[in-house]
């Protein structure tokens, strides 16, 4: 009788173990993540990004302090040039901060003077470096400068920036704008 009972207990235990293993196996199968839908979403994102892939030599990321004016121009940047950015709070040459702009004014410059000395120094440095590099490769220096201006900047400051760029041997000016927008649209 005892042997029979022991046998029964052993059989019950084995049945329990088997059923637990089966349950474990079933749970493992159901728990695997199906990444097909994720794969679809990622592929769509990749295609969208590839469609907007830019090979432009100039890249501008507008932000609250650098909202470019809109224009219906069809010209695009074809070559890499020296860039001069005038945002609401600073002036940058080739993305390097040069001087702080405070309320559409450059602090260290007198109101009636057109030249911005700090900017002139930086532009001269850039011109000299570019000329030295070009001399090594046998290329001529291109006196083209791309000016990226925040749309709300006052004309007085733009005039000073252009004047300073002009005396730093730049004679051709290109203004960066955002393509699109309409005249009959609130700016």
């Amino acid at each position, binding site marked *: 009788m005892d042997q029979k009972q022991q046998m029964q207990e052993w059989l019950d235990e084995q049945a329990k173990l088997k059923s637990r293993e089966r349950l474990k196996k079933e749970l493992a199968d159901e728990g695997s993540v199906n990444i097909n839908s994720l794969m679809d979403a990622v592929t769509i994102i990749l295609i969208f990004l590839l469609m907007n892939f830019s090979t432009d030599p100039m890249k501008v990321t507008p932000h609250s302090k650098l909202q470019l004016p809109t*224009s219906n121009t069809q010209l695009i940047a074809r070559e890499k040039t020296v860039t001069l950015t005038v945002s609401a709070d600073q002036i940058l040459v080739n993305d390097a901060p040069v001087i702080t702009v405070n309320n559409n004014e450059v602090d260290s410059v007198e109101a009636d003077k057109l030249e911005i000395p700090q900017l002139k120094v930086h532009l001269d440095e850039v011109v000299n470096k570019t000329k030295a590099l070009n001399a090594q490769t046998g290329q001529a220096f291109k006196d083209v400068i791309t000016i990226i201006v925040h749309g709300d900047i006052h004309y007085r400051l733009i005039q000073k920036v252009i004047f300073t760029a002009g005396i730093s041997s730049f004679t051709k000016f290109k*203004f960066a704008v955002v393509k699109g927008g309409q005249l009959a649209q609130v700016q």
Partner: protein
Amino acid sequence: MARKSKYVEVAEELNLIPIMNLVLCLIPCVLFKTQLVKIGMINVSAPSFGPASSKPKDDKEEKPLGLTVALSKEGFLLKATGANLFEVLGLTPDGEASGVKIAKKKDTFLSKDGDAVELVDYDFVALYDYLSRIKDAYKEEKLLTLVGEPDLEFKYLIRTMDVVRFRFESPKFSSLKELSAAAAQFKYKKTKEEVTGEDGKTKTVEAYEPLWDQVTFGAVQ
């Protein structure tokens, strides 16, 4: 009686994880080079307040027109050093006016939400009309100087440049909405131009007819 097979074929799912890893690595690379805003360029000639031009002066006795469009808080002011614009445009001078004034005008604009709002803004329609009439009288002239008030926002100069550079198909516009639509759809008059290529051969290409395409900035007065 046919025997039922003991084994059931189970179609295994494709392991997409390596591809997924690759795609996820690609996304930041592409994202870095993606520009969601289309950037355009506007060429501006060397400003008149800059260093002296290296170009030799023409020996012609004919005085250049020297057309200037000044932007102020009141509107546009058209001036020319080489001509009387009142005569050219057939207008009667208003007292001792220094130039032809185009006052700001109330018009319907589209807000950023797409709603129509009435605003007082620059009269681009009248400006285009006057500038195209001046161009008819001075076909060889191309240079236009833009001058703004010291505290005028730069975006208004860019908007003005959109109107002055090329001649539209339509000679006149009745509203800003019409002019705006023509500019947005590039409805410019086309002309044929002879261009010498890098190989030295001359080709005839179709281009937009310029109005005042050499724009420069002048000094604040």
